[in-house]
Structure formats: structure tokens, C-alpha cells
């Protein structure tokens, strides 16, 4: 017995070590530790061992069992490791991805949202108005003379009803002032329409962002500070901004705003981005007349308004050369944003 155990142990360790897969290992385990395994049978022979040897043989048996079990476990994890390694070895992670459908927002939405986010941080709330407008809200209330060229049927879309498609979002200024009292601080993104043939730089339907701030002490410094801050947020903190005197019927004084931008590979140049001005007192008078009160007393109320073309901002931002790309919705264009 005493001699048998080391032999069984040696034999078991050889079998375990020789096993090359889970099954061979299991066979080895059964052959040694199974019901009829060699070590199990040897243990069963304990009853025949003389009493004085039982202690020593028992120790031998336990040591053999411990060593075999350890070998089994070691082999087991070695085999698992090999199997894991084999399983992972088959994966070529350099194969292409299993692609998901990817979508995206239109560049006009992106630039509009960016502009709106900045202006909302500055305390402007959104406002809105109809695109099918009447002459009062689009022209009359905005101090536009009855024979102003913009009212021409050649330049503006009219309907048989006498209504028209608003030529600017400035009509939202009128709508807002009719229904609310100062202080007002609003922005209005929206479509505007002009009877322009569609080409690389013109659309008959385009997108504007209008702004209006009316209170009791709004001044040119407010206009300047607000728009400088806005444009520097939009185009970068060091962007140079200049205000050129201009003329709009509904603001006075009026300015056009240029920012100095560097297009890659070109000299920096001034690019027109917006129009602005102090609300003309004649607009307040027209609003009061329409409201039938003096909520916008031109002696006590001042304000500034501004407007910019969002299509143009998108073109400047991304170097888009042909404005038609913005309405053609070619996915090869859209997926770049």
C-alpha cells in the first residue's frame, strides 16, 4: 500500500500533464479520483492497513490527493487559458465596423441653434409671427414709404388676397410690440421671401434671425455692446467687428456690421454679417396707433433691432460657396456636419 500510493500519484500526474483538452483531463480525473479511480480504490484499501500504519498511509493518501487535485486545477486553468486565447485569436478587430445608420442636423439648424444659444444666454426670449403677412406688418408699421421699391410685385411675392410673403423677419418686431409692452428683449428666427431667381448666391426663400430690445434707456452703446459680444461669441473672442453707417427705413441711425475673418489661404477681410440700428420713432408711433395706446411712447422709449441672414452665416462658417447646397439636401453634403 505504502508503495502503491506514490506510483498512483506519479501515474496520475503524468496523465494530467499529458491531457491536451478538457475531455482528456476529465478522463484522467475519473481514472484517479472517480468511483473506481485508482486513488479511490487505494483509499478503500485503508481498511486492510494495519492499525499502526494507518496514520502514515492516511497522510500519504491525503498528500497524494492534494497534489493530484492541485495538478488537476492547474491543468484546468491552463487549458481554459489556452481555450480563451484560441477564442480571442480568431477575432480580427481590423475588419470594418458593423455600421449603424447615422444621421445629422442640417447646417442651418446648427448655426441657428448656436446663435440662439448665445442670445438666450444674453437674456433674449424667442418670438414668432406669420410668414404670410399683410402690408401693415411687413411695411407700413416699419416706416416703409408706400412707393418703396421693396413693395414692388417684381421683388415681393403677393397673393390675390393682397397679403404677401414677409420680406424680412422684421415683421415679428411689429407683431411682438403689438401684443406686449416694454421692456422687450426678443429674437425671432424664421423664413423670409424675396422674388430673386435662385442662383449660387440667392434663394427666393431664405432664413433670418431678427432681434429687438426695447426699454426706457436703450442706447447706441447697448446696440454696440450686444452685437459685438454676440459676434465674438459666434466667430471667436478676438474677432474684429465694425459698424458701417447704412440706411433702413425702420431704424435710425442704421448700421451694417462686418466681421474681419480669415478664410484659409486668404488675406483677412471684412465680411458683412448683419444689419442693425436704433428703432425709428416712427415705428413706435405706428405701433401705438395699432395698439390704440401709448405703451411705446417715442419720447420715453428707445430700442435697437438687428437682423442677419442665417444662410449667409452658414456659408461663412463652413466655406459653402453655393447657397443651393443648403436646399438640395444631398446626403453627401449633409453627412459632413
Amino acid at each position, binding site marked *: 500500500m505504502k508503495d502503491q500510493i506514490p506510483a498512483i500519484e506519479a501515474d496520475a500526474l503524468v496523465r494530467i500533464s499529458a491531457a491536451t483538452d478538457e475531455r482528456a483531463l476529465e478522463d484522467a480525473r475519473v481514472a484517479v479520483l472517480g468511483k473506481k479511480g485508482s486513488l479511490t480504490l487505494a483509499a478503500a484499501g485503508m481498511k486492510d492497513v494495519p492499525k499502526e500504519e494507518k496514520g502514515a498511509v492516511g497522510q500519504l493518501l491525503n498528500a497524494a490527493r492534494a497534489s493530484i487535485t492541485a495538478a488537476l486545477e492547474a491543468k484546468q486553468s491552463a487549458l481554459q487559458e489556452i481555450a480563451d486565447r484560441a477564442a480571442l485569436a480568431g477575432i480580427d478587430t481590423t475588419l470594418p465596423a*458593423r*455600421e449603424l445608420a447615422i*444621421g445629422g442636423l442640417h447646417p442651418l439648424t446648427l448655426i441657428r441653434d448656436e446663435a440662439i444659444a448665445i442670445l438666450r444666454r444674453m437674456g433674449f*426670449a424667442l418670438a414668432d409671427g406669420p410668414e404670410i403677412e399683410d402690408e401693415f406688418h411687413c411695411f407700413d408699421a416699419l416706416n416703409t414709404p408706400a412707393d418703396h421699391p421693396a413693395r414692388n410685385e417684381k421683388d415681393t411675392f403677393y397673393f390675390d*388676397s393682397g397679403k404677401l410673403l414677409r420680406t424680412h423677419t422684421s415683421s415679428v418686431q411689429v407683431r411682438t410690440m403689438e401684443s406686449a409692452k416694454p421692456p422687450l428683449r426678443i429674437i425671432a428666427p424664421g*423664413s423670409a421671401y424675396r422674388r430673386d431667381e435662385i442662383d449660387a448666391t440667392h434663394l427666393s426663400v431664405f432664413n433670418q434671425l431678427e432681434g429687438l430690445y426695447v426699454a426706457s434707456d436703450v442706447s447706441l452703446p447697448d446696440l454696440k455692446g*450686444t452685437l459685438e459680444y454676440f459676434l465674438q461669441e459666434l466667430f471667436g473672442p478676438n474677432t474684429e467687428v465694425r459698424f458701417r*453707417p447704412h440706411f433702413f427705413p425702420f431704424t435710425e441711425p442704421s448700421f451694417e456690421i462686418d466681421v474681419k475673418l480669415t478664410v484659409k489661404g486668404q488675406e483677412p477681410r471684412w465680411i458683412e454679417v448683419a444689419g442693425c440700428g436704433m428703432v425709428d420713432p416712427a415705428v413706435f408711433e405706428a405701433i401705438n396707433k395699432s395698439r390704440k395706446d401709448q405703451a411705446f411712447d417715442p419720447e420715453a422709449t*428707445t430700442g435697437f433691432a438687428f437682423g442677419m441672414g442665417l444662410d449667409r452665416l452658414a456659408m461663412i462658417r463652413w466655406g459653402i460657396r453655393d447657397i443651393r447646397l443648403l436646399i438640395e439636401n444631398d446626403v453627401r453634403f449633409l453627412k459632413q456636419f
Partner: protein
Amino acid sequence: MNISLNWLSTHLDLAGKSIREIDDLLTFAGVEVEGIVPKGVSSEKIVVAQIKEAVQHPNADRLKVTQVDAGEGALRQIVCGAQNYKVGDKVPCALPGAELPGGFTINETVMRKVESKGMLCAASEIGLPAGEDGLLILPADAEIGRPVKQLFDSDVLLELEVTPNRPDLLSHRGMARELATLLKTPLKAFEIPSAKTTAATSIQIDAPDACPLYSAIRISGVTVKESPAWLKERLESIGLRPINNIVDVTNFVLHELGQPLHAFDAAKIGGGLVVRHARDGESFTALDESEHSLAGDDLVISDTTGATLALAGVMGGLASGVTVTTTDIVLESAYFTSQGIRRTSRRTALSSDSSYRFERGVDPEGVISAAALTVKLILETAGGSADAAIQLAGEAPVITKPVALDAAKLDQLMGGSIALADAEQILTRLGLSKRSDGAWEIPSFRADLQRHIDLVEEIARVHGLANVPSRMLGTFVPASAIDGAYDADMILRRRLAALGLYECQTIKLISDAQVADALPLRPLQDGDTIRVKLPLSEDHAVMRPSMIPGLVASAVRNVRQQAKSLRLFEMGRVFRNAGGGKSKDQESETLGILLSGPTRPVGWDQAEQIADPFDLKGLVAALIPGASIRFSPKDREGFAIACDIRAGDQSIGVFARLLPSRERELDFNTPVFVAELDLGKVRKLLKGIEHVAELPQFPGSSRDAAMEVASTLPNSEIEGVITKCAETLLVDFECFDVFSDPSSAKLAADRKSLAYRFHYRASDRTLKAEEVETVHKRILKALTEKAGVHFR
């Protein structure tokens, strides 16, 4: 408007001012500089060269190889294609480094294996007026090596955009006056000959409102001929074509002073002049030979016989114009009010430099002096003798009135950035004068200055916004309803993009034909679409009543570019009337979705899966989570398998597939599914939960049931029966398999098998098996009785 820098310099000393400075000056005066066109040769590297030799190019029939002397000692070899010169001629030679108009630079090069070290130039190639074909042959005495620019006068043409409120800038004198103000330098003296006037004997004004002032003077014995060189040069410098000395002088004075003038052939005038409104339907042939039928509010100049000589302020008549045979002329200088001229010009589609200025307003005080200058110049260039005095009818209207400047208001608007004295100095420099009562007298050429704010504008403009401080302040404002809608829309947009859709932006004006693709929430009746009166083209004539036409057109465009997977959406306004045109001009906001083709990119281990209705349904459900989206079939003309999209008990949109015939017509290879959702309703569904639900504390239990039904039975009927059972223990159920077998091998072809799973749970206890069984059996029984379901 075009301004010649040389011409401008006759009024204002611009020496030492660079073009860039003048550009800035004009820009900050509010005059947009649209173009700066240098006239004449600009580069110093274009020099006089003499051709010493010209031999045939060995490799090109049309080219010669020349050796030229450009004053550098050694001869220079240049390949040249011109034929018009002979050896010994002097021509312009652009040396390497010379920059030619159009921005290209001359380099040494090799042309057909022969070196060429420069370019011999034609007139047009170096910025001179185009002459004969070929090289510009310079005078024989031109000094070799001298820059060609020294042989020709140079000038700069400024193309300017003057805002409509500043007609006083529409002349060289006017523009010079403005620049002088800004530069704080005096204008050069400008002598206007004194003019004698006399009350008119042969002018009758029948329409004093439209023509308050009319002057005329006869000049007899003129010789109509080509203008002298100085006059032609002035006109050409601003892009005008010289015609004859009489016409050229009137054009010159218009661009010099801004006052339009007109010369009649005196022989064509029967008696005196009458300024009157046209007779309705009166016919008129203009100088440009266009024919017009006039209206009663057009103003004309006629003679006493009634013959119409000119369309006042717009254009002369063909019959009464100055020709080479003219010997006596009558020169008109008048003040016509702007509204009438604008109306006539627009109605007749006739416009001229004259109408352009009258429409914006001329200086009534300038009428006589312009006439006097014109007379002087005509006598100088055409000879003859003028009457002793200019005949004057009516009087110059007073179009300005004194305006007071409110110091407190000025201070408020300017933010205290300018002292009153400085502000007043600006007004003074602009030609205004302060009266004893403190108000400001406005010069007659600045009729745009009528109100206090107009004075403030002038001060702000000249002071410059650069000199105004920036203030960053603002009142607090509450968010509006529009803010809420905008935020909801952005959530939807971002969800759609994350679900793999691209956002589109289409033109809101569509064609009549496209209306057929419209799938508005409520079907259109006759009279419900809105058409613009004068569309630019039939492609853009109707306000879109639905998002679908634009999305379909975008999809078609992408298909033509070989795109396979079309996953598009657009959000925005749609426009319609309702009730067959009864309720007008409704604008609402909708979301349009279009799906067609593979639902995701095909890859190395995934097969193509073509979008079907359930993809779109799933998309809508994912877009509005928790809204229990259902499709309820409802026919739509022009579409297949149309459904109302319902959330709970309200209809929130429409779903359909394009008719297969329409898909084929548009070259789609895969079915096209579209949906349009009412954003007003969808935004409300995005409101989110009010209270969070407790998580289940006790386990639930599920039961499956396979049922066989007629293949025509809509699934919604089964769902309806289950829902109607209103079993409180039933917390959820789902259909997890649908089986049908067209071959009838496993199931009759007119039957289908649906497998459902039912989830039961109580919130306060663990359910016993028998409790679940009881409820489950009740549901199955209801299905058998009410939906004719047969359980397998």
C-alpha cells in the same frame, strides 16, 4: 453709381490719399464701395520695348520668337503670337513679376520648348481701352525701358452704392462735399456762372404738384458734333458712351451736380412748353425707341399744339430729341416731385440716370445753377447764342424745415460719448446752420433731415460707432411659449439624428405637380392650396401644404446620386386654407419623415434589410417614448396603406407609402414610406412624466398564447379585445411572432398564427398560479368570442 477719382479730384484735393483711405472714408460715411477699378496701366514692370528681331517659332506655326530691347542692355527673348507688328516697332513688354489686370503675374516660361522671358502685350491686356487686334504699337519716340504707365493717364473708377436717403451724393460735387466734411478739408472753389432769370412767357405748368419749378432757355445756332476730348474722357471715365456735344454736356452736368437736364430740338416744338399730365392711353415713343401707352398720372412735357415731347424727368421723346441737323435747342432744367417719377418709371419700365435722381429727390435750389453751367458749356462746345435770361415758371419748393437738436436725447442715445459742441460742429460741417432760436437750418440738398433723429443719425454717422463705448447690460425676460416649442423641436431633431436620419431644408414654394405628393394631416380640398400671384417659375408657385413633396424631391435627388438608404426628415411650417378655401392662410408646424431602402449600411457580415412600415412605426414610437403609438388604417387618395398615426386617443399624424406607380415614376427601387406629424401635438407629448412610478416589489408571471385567425384580421382588433378586458393584473402584453404559410403546407393560406405573451403582476403581493390562470382564461375566452380566435 460710378465716380471717377480724377473727376472727383477737380472738386477736392485728394493728393496723398490712398485708394484704401478713400475706400474706408466712403465706407464709414455709409456709402458702400462695391468695386474699385483701376483704369490705365498699373504695374511698373510693364515697360516700353523695341522689337529687334522676330523669327518663326520652330515648333508652332502661329508663334514667333522675338528678341526685344527693354532697356536692360541685353536683349530679351519672348515668344509672341501677334501678327500686327513689324521689327523696329515699340510695344509694351511685361517683364517677369509684372501683375496684369485680372490678377495674373508674368513668369519666365518655356513655350513649346522655346524660352520666353516676358510677354508683349495688347492694349486690353494691360488695362487700356481695347484697340486694334494684336500688340499695342507705341509711339516711335517712346523711350525704351520707361514704364508704359507714364505714357497713359490713369484713373480709378469707384463703383458705389448710395443709400436711397442720400440723393445728394449722386454727383461728383455732392460726393466731394461729403468727403470734404469727413476729411475736414475745404472743397475746391467751383464757379457757377451767374444766371439771369425771367418770368416764363412760353412755359405753362398745368400740374404744379408734380412740377413746382420748370426752367427753359433757348440756345440758337449750335453745331451738333462730336464732343471735345476732355468731355468724352470724363463721360468714358464713368462708363458712359459719348453721343454728341449737346447730350454729352447735359450728361456731364448731371454727373457733376446731380441735376438732370434735357435738351429739345427747338424746331420740333410747336409754340411754347406745357407741363401737364398725360391723357389716358396717350402713346409715346421714347428716345430708346420703346413705345408706351401713358396713364393719366404720368407727367409729360408737351408743346402748345398738344404734341408730347418728353416723359417728364424720365426720358425724352424720339421725335423731339437733338440730332445732327439740330441748330436751335431748348434746354430744360426742372424740379419734378419724386413720387410721380417713381410711379411712371416703374409703370413704363423706363429708367434713366435722370429718373434715378428725381425718384430720390434733387436739390430744388440747384435747378437754375445747373442750367447756367449747362448753357456755358454748350456755348463753349457747340457755339451759338443763348437767350439773355432763363425762363422760369413756378418756384423752388421749400422741402426742408428747421430741426431742433435735443441735447439730453442726444446724450442718451450716444451714451454720453460726444460733447454737444462736437456734435454741433459736425452739423455745421455738414452745411447746417444754427438759428438764433437754437434750431438747425437744413440746406436744400439735405431734404432727408426732417426730424430730430435724423440729426442724431448724422452725428452718430460722422462721429463713428467706433467712438461709442460698448455697454453689456440687459433686462431679465421670461421664456416665451415659442422658447418651449423651440426646445421641444430641438429634442426631436436630435433624436431623429440619433435614430439615423438626416435633417433636410427644402424650399417652401413648390410646383403644382408636387402638390400630388402632399400628405397633410387633413386632406386638401379644392381651394385649400395657396398660390403666389406672380411666381418666379412654375417650380416654385404654391406654398407647401405638407412636408412630403419636398422630402420626396430631396430623396429623388439623392437616388439620382446613387444613394441607396434614404432616411430624411424636415421640420417647419406648412401653409394651407381650410374648408375649400373658406378659412384662409393657416400656418402650422409639422415634422415630415421619409424612409426608403436599407435601414442600416450593408456590411461584411450583415445582409441588406429594406425599410418597411414597421421601421417607420418604430421610429415614431422611439421619437415619442411612452406615447403608445398606433397606426389606424385610413385611405388617402394618391397613397398606399395610409394610416392615421395615433397616440392614445388622439390623431397626431399620417403615415403612408407612395403608390408603387409613383415610386416607379420617380425611379425609386425600394418602397418609400412617409409620415407627417403635427408638431403642436407632438410637443405636448414630450412634456414628460409628472410622478415617477414605483418599481414593482413582487414578482410577476407570464403566459404565452398562440392563436390562429383569418389572415385578414388586423392585429389591432386582437389588441382591442385584450385592452377592453381591462384586467388589472395584466400589466403588459406583446405579440412576439406572426406566422403564415402561403403554400398551405403548415397552415391554411387564408389563416395566420399570432403568438402573444401576457405579463401579470399585482403591486401588493406575489400572485398565485390559480389567480393568473383565472385572469388569463378570461382573456382567452374574450378573444375567442369577440375576435374569432382559435387557440392552437
